[in-house]
């Protein structure tokens, strides 16, 4: 059981603070969606965890140890950062072989992960002839190479075709079921909603939320019920009397804000109003996310700007 621990992590570049006192813990056995707009600090955080960038302050560890101190790190952590990173002049198999050999991973693993990612038939082709989707699969193959207990994947669904997206979704679910720690960054909410159990949301380098996905959606969305009735006027009057906001209603259908189906159903039953349909509206992750970022817009605007801009004032 290996988790990723990020403690008070800060990374400043010359003019910007890409990661700002970030503290979070990515737990094993679930897929953690790493969300935030472009430039929120997701990729920087991943590079800091991998020891590729030097933090300005704070620490990032894997199972309690800084990444550079891991023995044969590919056996513990698999990462996909940039599908364009593999050298175009190598074959897919040679690319994986370089990585496997350095961490004393048996050569057959290269063939196994090529098989698993659907690249077996192009193993001996040069990477420069690959499409973005194939490079993405190769990057995932490289991440899986050492059978690691921790995976960090930056936008793994980028460039994949519809079948590839279904495949990656199932792969991520399976990796989490096997007890691995899976951190997946994305700015696509609807996609993330299909595989994530837990969410870590960043904006402007700061932590906005670190919460289970269902709780996140419940927290940041309004309850709302769709109702169809044979007696719209009476229902409307009754609900308004109970303090609910009702919209629509001409054709017997209306939407009630601020309550769940149980409450509205109970009210209607008590009054003897016949209901023909009653359904909770399921808020999407996207709606919840936008609601959260709207709440925090003020907070984000108040965050310190770059030193340059403040000097110019």
């Amino acid at each position: 059981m290996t988790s990723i621990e990020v403690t008070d992590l800060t990374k400043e570049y010359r003019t910007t603070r890409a990661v700002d006192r970030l503290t979070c813990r990515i737990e094993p056995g679930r897929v953690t969606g790493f969300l935030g707009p472009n430039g929120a600090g997701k990729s920087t955080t991943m590079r800091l965890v991998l020891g590729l960038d030097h933090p300005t302050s704070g620490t990032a560890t894997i199972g309690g140890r800084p990444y550079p101190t891991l023995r044969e790190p590919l056996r513990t952590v698999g990462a996909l950062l940039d599908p364009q990173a593999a050298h175009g002049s190598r074959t897919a198999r040679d690319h994986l072989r370089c990585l496997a050999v350095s961490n004393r991973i048996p050569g057959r693993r290269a063939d196994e992960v090529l098989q698993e990612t659907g690249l077996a038939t192009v193993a001996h082709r040069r990477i420069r002839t690959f499409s973005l989707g194939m490079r993405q699969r190769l990057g995932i193959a490289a991440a899986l190479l050492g059978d690691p207990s921790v995976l960090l994947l930056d936008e793994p669904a980028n460039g994949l075709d519809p079948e590839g997206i279904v495949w990656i979704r199932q792969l991520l679910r399976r990796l989490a079921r096997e007890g691995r720690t899976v951190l997946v960054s994305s700015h696509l909410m609807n996609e993330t909603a299909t595989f994530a159990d837990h969410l870590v949301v960043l904006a402007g380098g700061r932590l906005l939320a670190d919460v289970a996905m269902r709780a996140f959606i419940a927290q940041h969305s309004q309850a709302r019920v769709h109702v169809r009735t044979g007696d719209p006027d009476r229902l409307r009057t009754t609900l308004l009397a109970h303090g609910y906001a009702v919209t629509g209603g001409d054709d017997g259908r209306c939407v009630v804000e601020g309550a769940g189906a149980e409450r509205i159903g109970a009210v209607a039953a008590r009054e003897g109003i016949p209901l023909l349909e009653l359904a909770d509206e399921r808020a999407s992750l996207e709606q919840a996310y936008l609601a959260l970022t709207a709440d925090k817009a003020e907070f984000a605007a108040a965050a310190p700007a770059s030193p340059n801009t403040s000097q110019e004032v």
Partner: protein
Amino acid sequence: MSVTAVLHSEWIKVRSVRASLGSLLAVFAAMLAITLLVFATVDRAEVYNDGDPVFGAFYAINFAQIAAIAFGATAVSSEYAGGALRISLSAVPQRGLFYAAKTAVVAAAALCVGLTTAFATFFAGQALLGEEAIGLGEPGALRACVGAGIYLALMALFAAGLTFLLRSATAVLSLLIPFILIMSFMIGDIAGGAADYLPDHAGQHVLHQDPEGAVGPWTGLAVTALWTAAALLAGWEAVRRRDV
């Protein structure tokens, strides 16, 4: 981490990228081909025009060293194509180990090819010279063969260090090739004394039967080695400090 495993991995990297494997083989091919071409066509007296049969035998080193520089530069610059270095340092996060392994593989490959090239060129070239040929017994000949191999390896490492610093083979090649082709000749003619200490000139003293000037054959090679060490140190500082 296992040092041999990392060295093995670096060797796979060198031989699986066409540009670096190609320029490594070009060291051998260029030196041998040009020597044979020149010795087969040019009047024999011209080969010895400065009266030094040993240096004459290594005329083609000017071309071979460009291939050696290209090898050192491309072996390193493949790490700077896209985000390749990120992948490499994820696999081998101890940067010192990564840097040492990469440098060692470049050094070993260049030295093996350099020595093979030097001896092969010497024997093949002399075979064309008939009765004017010299053997390894000729004073300075053996020293020049070994020295030429070491010199080629040092030039490859010099380029490798600079490429770690500048992160681009194009930058390093467009810096070093004009320097070697043009600057050295010009400065060599203008200020003889100082030119003896340029990275390429200094090392080439070892190719002469009787080196003139203040720098001896092995001290000249040592001067080139100092340049190389400086380039590698600068490259290491860059790799150690930079975010990738």
